[in-house]
């Protein structure tokens, strides 16, 4: 077992999938000889050949649409959109076709494809390279949207996404690509999609987050522990479907829920979680559900980027408010 960072774990999962399933084919911009701009596919073209690891022209619409067509005919396309900011033109294909082909043919055609895209800020990238627009995708019926938070979870969830019989958007928190390393076993074991993961246990407060914001969320939980406040940390992992049961069970225990996400506040996934708790856990709540999120602003360019990202301080202030409320 080796210590791997997230980008290495993703590469290992892709390699495993290519190795085990001859129908798996990778395509995207610069994923071949360049190995992807983040090196997620480094070395794969040499190992599996240019028929299975394909550089596409600069064509996000055709990357997504071609994945739809190929998936209906027995291939397992794992396509890459280079940055989430360039994914918008692919949403037509995701929403109009990938996510509804099974339904509109009453099960005759299906679309087992994966669309990978790095997302989120915090690496000082150019404009349009740092967005977190996952709520737009989670709103699309028929889709699955998955976000890993650790190298090991990235490995298992990506394999699950590739094995899934329906389309999955796999959003990779690029701030975590090389942030930490941990042991990852190349055992080909997929993690279940749709299950949230409880990363830390606590009885006073539930912190729900996903992707890169779990870094700040963990740091806040650690600081709270120093004050004698035990926070439970839940990694949502699957943004569609949402594992409501795990969140409700935790909040029924703690009575407090704080949701942390990098995406803008309004109509973000935090709103869905807060509404679900209001509908199902009202009598368990000791304090109003709170959200610490990105602002409803355009994602700032790099000089103000850090001012946008939810900080440990903001999470702690909200947590303190909630503990003081009751």
């Amino acid at each position, binding site marked *: 077992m080796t210590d791997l960072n997230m980008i290495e774990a993703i590469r290992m999962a892709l390699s495993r999938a290519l190795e085990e399933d001859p129908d798996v084919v990778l395509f995207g911009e610069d994923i071949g000889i360049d190995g992807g701009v983040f090196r997620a596919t480094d070395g794969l073209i040499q190992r599996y050949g240019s028929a299975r690891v394909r550089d596409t022209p600069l064509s996000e*619409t055709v990357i997504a649409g071609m994945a739809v067509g190929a998936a209906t005919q027995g291939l397992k396309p794992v396509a890459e959109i280079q940055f989430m900011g360039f994914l918008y033109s692919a949403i037509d294909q995701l929403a109009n076709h990938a996510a509804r082909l099974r339904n*509109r*043919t*009453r099960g005759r055609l299906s679309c087992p494809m994966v669309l990978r895209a790095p997302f989120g800020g915090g690496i000082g990238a150019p404009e349009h390279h740092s967005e977190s627009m996952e709520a737009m995708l989670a709103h699309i019926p028929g889709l699955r949207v998955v976000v890993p938070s650790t190298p090991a979870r990235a490995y298992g969830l990506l394999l699950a996404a590739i094995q899934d019989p329906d389309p999955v958007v796999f959003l990779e928190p690029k701030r975590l690509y090389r942030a930490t390393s941990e042991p990852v076993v190349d055992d080909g074991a997929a993690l279940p999609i749709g299950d949230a993961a409880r990363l830390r246990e606590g009885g006073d407060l539930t912190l729900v987050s996903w992707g890169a914001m779990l870094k700040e969320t963990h740091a806040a939980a650690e600081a709270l522990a120093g004050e004698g406040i035990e926070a439970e940390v839940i990694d949502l992992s699957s943004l569609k479907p949402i594992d409501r*049961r795990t969140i409700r069970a935790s909040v029924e225990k703690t009575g407090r829920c704080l949701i942390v996400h990098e995406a803008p506040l309004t109509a973000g996934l935090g709103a869905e979680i807060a509404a679900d708790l209001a509908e199902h856990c009202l009598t368990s709540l000791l304090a109003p559900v709170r959200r610490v999120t990105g602002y409803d602003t355009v994602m700032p360019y790099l000089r103000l980027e850090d001012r946008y990202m939810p900080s440990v301080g903001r999470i702690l202030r909200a947590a303190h408010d909630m503990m003081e409320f009751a």
Partner: protein
Amino acid sequence: MAEPLVFLNAAGACVRDLPDFARDGQTLKALYAAMVRTRRFDAKAVALQRTGRLGTYASSIGQEAISVGVASAMRAEDVFLPSFREHGGQLWRGVTLEELFLYWGGDERGNDFGGPRQDFPVCIPVASQYPHAAGVALAMQQKGSGGVAVAIGGDGSTSKGDFYEALNIVGIWQLPAVFVINNNAWAISVPRSQQSQAQKLSDKAIGTGLPGEQIDGNDVIAVRAATERALERARAGEGGTLIECLSYRLGDHTTADDASRYRDEEEVSPHWKEEPLIRLRAHLVEAHGWGKKDEEALLRACAEEVDAAAETYLATEPEPARAMFDHLYADLPPDIAAQAEEARDD
């Protein structure tokens, strides 16, 4: 500028040597019957819509030769990716009249084709079927299946980036795909002249390295001949082709449209002389002994078949409310299954 490929002119006269398939009377009669059947289906569908028994419907009247000609050149293992005006091709491929009525009547079960299981349902968002064709062709190339992906769209669809992106990648990867443009001169209210300054839409292939050809889309023989050549190229590993078929939309865009708002009858009426059935019928009479009795028998058979299919459709009960969840995912997530419990039929 080269003239569009044509074998039978509007009067039904042969203007060049016919390809082999078109010397056979039975083949031509089958093509003619398929076009007549399509037109009968169109008429019935419009009538059902006008009487509140079908959803919004896109008639293909006047463009039957494109759809039928293309489909008749294909093999069963090829995959057809039509836009919403290609009923004739779907019927030729084995989609049933009942399925078409069911689909246009608002029931997704009409897309669960019993016949061509791999064919795509009609593409409603214009031009997004072209990237699918590239993907289908990629799978065919990768698996060495020998099949070809055949996509059809309208003249308006060539203005979208999807069209260019799909042709472009098919060119780079030499994928087995054929792109057919049903240029019926109108995209709802926007005429061809306002769609592009390109002299020919088939010229748009030049920028992708694909061969492009403009043909008379009202001559089913030309359509089939051009499609056969394109399919042969694709099967030989020589890549994709773009075929622009010139035709004319004799009807409204759909039953929800009123074309008199934007085009005059004087523009439309000359095109009735050029539509595809007249010329093939004239040729059948001239060269293959097609008589009045043959014509009447065909019309009667088509009418009976279409009416019977319509009755079957009208007698088909809608699915229960719960059905909107049944094929959303292979396995419905518990999160969404909870909503399915709320979907009631009362």
